[in-house]
């Protein structure tokens, strides 16, 4: 049994480790992507522009209300077409083929972004209005207020929520295995098929995911403690 999980020529250890690295790579990229989407979405939702608010509202409602798998299929089967359509707008007529990694990052990033939007929006609204007024009274410009007052505090308020979004993102990357990208789930599936040991390999996959989620829980706890170092506690 342990020979199958070893790093030797007959073992799947190396591939599983590679799969874990791929899962981390997809998760981190998708989460970062999601943060960008989330910030854009949150600022759109908080703007007074009705069209922007409407688009952001549609985005979060659809992506949060539709199964993740369906979003992944949409991008898996239709992603290249969408990118080419965008390319045509900018005058590029060539054929663009997205690889499985970009599709995965794009799909999971879109999903992650919808949840991040809500978290960031809530965090921005949690910053006391008096502080913004005080900053304005000090003569700060809009950008300076954003940089010195709003963003640092939003980050602190958003951190617990973003921790949850990260865990969701990490687990959603398992669904990318339907696009045959060699992440944990895909490698386990292939290994399970060729060795006829599904229980062993899916348990290994579960353990790998547990390790990743546990480590990230600890990391986010640390980050929260660091972010709240200036806050007095009762």
């Amino acid at each position, binding site marked *: 049994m342990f020979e199958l999980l070893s790093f030797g020529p007959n073992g799947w250890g190396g591939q599983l480790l590679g799969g874990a690295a791929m899962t981390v790579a997809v998760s981190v990229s998708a989460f970062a992507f999601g943060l960008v989407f989330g910030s854009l979405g949150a600022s759109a939702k908080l703007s007074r522009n009705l069209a922007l608010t409407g688009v952001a509202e549609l985005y979060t*409602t*659809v992506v949060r*209300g*539709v*199964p*993740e*798998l*369906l979003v992944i*299929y*949409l991008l898996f*089967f*239709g992603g290249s*077409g969408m990118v080419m359509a965008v390319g045509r707008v900018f005058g590029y007529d060539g054929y663009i083929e997205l690889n499985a990694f970009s599709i995965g990052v794009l799909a999971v990033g879109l999903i992650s972004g919808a949840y991040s939007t809500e978290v960031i929006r809530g965090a921005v609204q949690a910053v006391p209005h008096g502080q913004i007024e005080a900053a304005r009274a000090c003569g700060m410009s809009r950008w300076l207020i954003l940089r010195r007052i709003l963003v640092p505090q939003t980050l602190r308020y958003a951190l617990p929520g973003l921790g949850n979004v990260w865990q969701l993102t990490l*687990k*959603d*990357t*398992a*669904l990318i*295995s*339907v696009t045959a990208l060699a992440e944990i*789930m895909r490698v*386990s*599936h292939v290994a*399970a098929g060729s060795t*006829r*040991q*599904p*229980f062993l390999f*899916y*348990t290994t*996959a*579960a353990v790998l*995911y*547990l390790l990743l*989620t*546990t480590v990230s829980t600890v990391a986010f706890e640390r980050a929260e403690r660091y972010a709240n170092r200036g806050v007095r506690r009762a």
Partner: protein
Amino acid sequence: MNWELMWDSVPTLLRGVPVTLELVGLALLFGAAVAFAVALLRLYGNRVTERLMAAYVFVFRGTPLLVQIFLIYYGMGQFELVRSSFLWIYLREPFWCAILALTLNTGAYTSEILRGAILSVPQGQIEAARACGMSRTLLFRRIVMPVAIRQMLPAYGNEVILMVKASSLASTITLLEITGIARKIIAQSFAVFEVFIVAGSIYLLLNFLASRLIRYAEWRMTPYLRARG
């Protein structure tokens, strides 16, 4: 946009709705029972049951649902013991494997919601009930549970929506529910956007109805918050 194809895919996709509803309904029903038992064992059990249940919740919340589904569907059949037992009639069916995975998954999440709700019941109410001479079970039935259920409803509403979405993973083990059918149509016709819009709308409608239902339950359970007319 191929409107004709889009229109034609509506009845086909709607045929997946009963399967999705069955998956979600049964998983939520069994999951509620699991969650109830787990929450009680964590709160009122001894140290062993407490640890065991905490481990169960940790494992099922920390791994993707897809791993759980594959582990049950592909993994269980590997053991001769399982295949020769009476359980095999159920465990060889993808439908019951999906139900089992979804049940265990939602059971873990719901037990945490329920546990938090039970812990949030004000101590004063429990003291008052005890002062009235209620027994432990009567106190639990009449005071703790009603207050806790009311408290947990908003969070449980989210869990219901998550379950509607999670049921789509059953398509990975050959079940033809809405997502499974959608995938099939896409593979045959390459009408990605048309099918996505129809299937997505069905899910949005289901989730909308689910959230309305929960909202209504919340309204029914909080008559004291309404203005007296």
